[in-house]
């Protein structure tokens, strides 16, 4: 399992190439790249997205999410990369790749990790436009996506437990 949190740009193509090398012998690899959108929900042009972290707790929260994914799904390898700092439209915020023997597990585990990164990982996200900045919070869709995992859904107590 690899977790990297940092300000440097993420090249999803390069990450996937490296991951493919690590996963020789796996039958299935699913990956997800999250990018900064060019417009807000209200149609304004996005200038940038600013992501803040609480370093020790941010890392712990992602480790707990990755641990839970490894517990609930029959994974082989996993990488999670997440950017912090100022990110421009079309740049990658997050990259997740998971390998498994079969595709269903790889897809499902990738969704499980992403649903938790959206609403449980310790980040704060501010969308900057010409009219100022707006702090982004998980939407109802994000909450529903998380809740569908039922008993496998992690609570804050779970991701912050040392």
């Amino acid at each position: 399992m690899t977790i990297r949190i940092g300000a440097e740009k993420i090249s999803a193509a390069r990450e996937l190439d490296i991951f493919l090398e690590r996963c020789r012998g796996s039958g299935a690899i699913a990956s997800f790249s999250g990018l900064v959108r060019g417009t807000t929900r209200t149609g304004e042009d996005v200038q940038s997205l600013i992501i803040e972290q609480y370093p020790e707790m941010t890392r712990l929260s992602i480790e707990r999410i990755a641990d839970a994914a490894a517990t609930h799904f029959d994974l082989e390898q996993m990488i999670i990369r997440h950017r912090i700092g100022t990110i421009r439209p079309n740049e990658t915020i997050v990259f997740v790749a998971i390998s498994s023997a079969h595709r269903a597990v790889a897809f499902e585990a990738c969704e499980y990790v992403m649903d938790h990164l959206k609403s449980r990982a310790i980040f704060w996200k501010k969308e900057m436009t010409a009219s100022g900045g707006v702090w982004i919070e998980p939407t109802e869709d994000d909450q529903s996506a998380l809740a569908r995992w039922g008993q496998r859904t992690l609570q804050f107590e779970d991701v912050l437990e040392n």
Partner: protein
Amino acid sequence: MTQSCAVLFFGRLKETAGTDRMDLIVDMPCMIDDLIGRIADIYPGMADALRSERVRILVNGALVKRSDTIESRGEIAFLPPVSGG
């Protein structure tokens, strides 16, 4: 006994306070809610924001409630709703 505590603000709370960190000398033991009162004395307008049900509070990395008590020096962090990915 008085001890020093580091208070950390993140996200919108950092903006409201105008700082990401403050150091407070506190009489221990100290209830979290009393600590919030001390912070609000220094940063008027923070009281409601810090007492919001949506704000989570960590003391040395452990989740606590406003009614809990800090026994000794440490790091108190106020976390508004999180969003990653």
